[in-house]
């Protein structure tokens, strides 16, 4: 009963949150709506990364590459093959997932720093391929005139409409992530994160569990890439570099890797900051580096997870003082 009620409250919270988000275009100007779309795109990648980091206990410093792979796949298929962008975005997501699977197969045998280095390398290789396969990718100049998404005759360009596409994608990826986390799969992942030996002793195929999450996070990154490509209608290799991979990891850590929602909030926070400090780009990296260190020292579970824990304690104290409210 109690668990059911808590689940109901959680879902109500999520539904209300999305309702509020859906009304944003009424209040925000075009510049702010652009930021909102970028936030949504980053949040999708970060959902997958937080599953990977907070639940599976792995790391990736190559997700910008998978993000780029999704973007390029969708851009190339829609510009050169003239396929419907809705289809090509899905194809990009699946291809990025397949790439993640192939990268994860050898890389996830590694641990800690070695895994970080291997994924970093994979990300760098992907970015180099975006530059070097210039016949397909347009080289350093990238691809422009990427077609917009359309619903019938309605063109979803950089006005409010695109925001709803991204919002829907965020909702779907959140739903998928929570389905994984709040199920036996999530339990198996937490078991593995707790102790791999014990997890294996209860039948958890740890290698496969890691690979599954890595692949799923690749799909999310690829999906985000496709959404990015058809939003800006222009992409170039610069957008998919290692500094973005690091920024994404920072979002997860600063928000709180052990909760997909907290990690998503981290993505929102850091995206806003990085957009506002766009003119001082170098300094914003210094700022992120510093905040990463500070968060890891003072709020190791992440800003939003720690905040939630403090709030919970306060509520518990108030409830205790007033006596039990329920039953």
């Amino acid at each position, binding site marked *: 009963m109690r668990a059911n009620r808590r689940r109901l409250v959680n879902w109500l919270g999520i539904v209300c949150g999305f309702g509020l988000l859906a009304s944003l275009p009424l209040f925000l100007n075009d510049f702010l709506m652009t930021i909102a779309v970028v936030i949504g795109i980053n949040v999708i990648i970060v959902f997958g990364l937080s599953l990977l980091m907070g639940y599976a206990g792995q790391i990736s410093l190559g997700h910008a590459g998978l993000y780029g792979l999704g973007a390029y796949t969708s851009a190339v298929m829609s510009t050169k093959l003239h396929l419907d962008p809705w289809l090509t975005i899905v194809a990009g997501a699946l291809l990025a997932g397949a790439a993640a699977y192939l990268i994860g197969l050898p890389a996830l045998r590694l641990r800690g720093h070695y895994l970080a280095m291997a994924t970093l390398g994979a990300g760098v290789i992907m970015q180099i391929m975006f530059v070097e396969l210039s016949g397909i990718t347009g080289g350093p100049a990238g691809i422009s005139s990427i077609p917009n998404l359309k619903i019938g005759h309605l063109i979803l360009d950089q006005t409010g409409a695109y925001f709803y596409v991204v919002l829907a994608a965020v909702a779907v990826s959140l739903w998928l992530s929570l389905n994984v986390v709040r*199920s*036996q799969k999530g339990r198996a992942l937490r078991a593995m994160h707790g102790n791999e030996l014990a997890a294996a*002793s*209860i039948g958890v195929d740890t290698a496969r569990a890691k690979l599954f999450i890595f692949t799923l996070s690749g799909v999310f990154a690829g999906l985000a890439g496709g959404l990015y490509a058809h939003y800006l209608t222009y992409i170039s290799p610069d957008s998919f570099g290692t500094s973005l991979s690091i920024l994404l990891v920072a979002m997860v850590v600063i928000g709180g890797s052990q909760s997909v929602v907290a990690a998503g909030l981290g993505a929102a926070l850091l995206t806003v900051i990085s957009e506002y400090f766009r003119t001082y780009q170098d300094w914003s990296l210094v700022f992120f580096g510093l905040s990463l260190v500070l968060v890891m020292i003072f709020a190791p579970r992440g800003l939003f997870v720690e905040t939630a824990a403090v709030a919970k304690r306060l509520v518990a104290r108030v409830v205790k003082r007033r006596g039990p409210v329920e039953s």
Partner: protein
Amino acid sequence: MALLKVSGLAKSFGGVKAVSDLSFAVAPNQIKAIIGPNGAGKTTVFNLLCGVFAADAGTVEFAGRNISSLAPYVRARLGVGRTFQNTLLFDEMSVEENVMAATEAGLRLNAFAYLFRWPAVARAERQRREIAAEALKLVGLQDKARDPAGNLPAGERRLLEIARALGTRPEIVLLDEPAAGLNNAETDRLKHAIRAIRDRSITVLLVEHDMGLVMEICDEIVVLDQGAKIAEGPPLLIQEDDRVIEAYLGRPADNA
């Protein structure tokens, strides 16, 4: 036919022969113990049975099948459950969830079922809860189902680990020193639990230093010393075996 059959098992770590040429069998529905002084190789035998280490030589047969080269998680899925000498619980999870996590061994669904929340997931979840409730009741932890596992006292942690092993729906459970750190009342609970496990047709192989417990509940005992089997038989015979007495009492320096 034996449920578990070990033949010629050997394992060295560097120069240390932890297990050498070990053969024994466990019959279905038996409670069998492996005893021996510290460092005799008991835990290593468990790790070889579960696939944590690959054996240097020898085979492990389970239910008539050679499982020697299978990964630990596969052996768990086939029905070999275990606990650890240094209890390895998932402290972040609740008591109940520790056991539910273990149902992974017997109740598996494909990844898409979880991703898209197929109805089978909810159905399996109910079964997992039932399996957990039953296992927790068996070790007497049903009232603590919602507590964080990390909050349990040492004795109950061992009992929870047994419940977790039962969550895999095993045919045999390997218990590594389940009575270590238990007080008298908890040891009694353990004794009842082990008998109840056997009454559910689950075979028990345990490593234990508490001789009172071993002599009382076991059908058969294997005695290890320095990696080799020095005796095997029912408790009454083992108690009188000269080599066993020598291994335990004759070289007090080894027991320090």
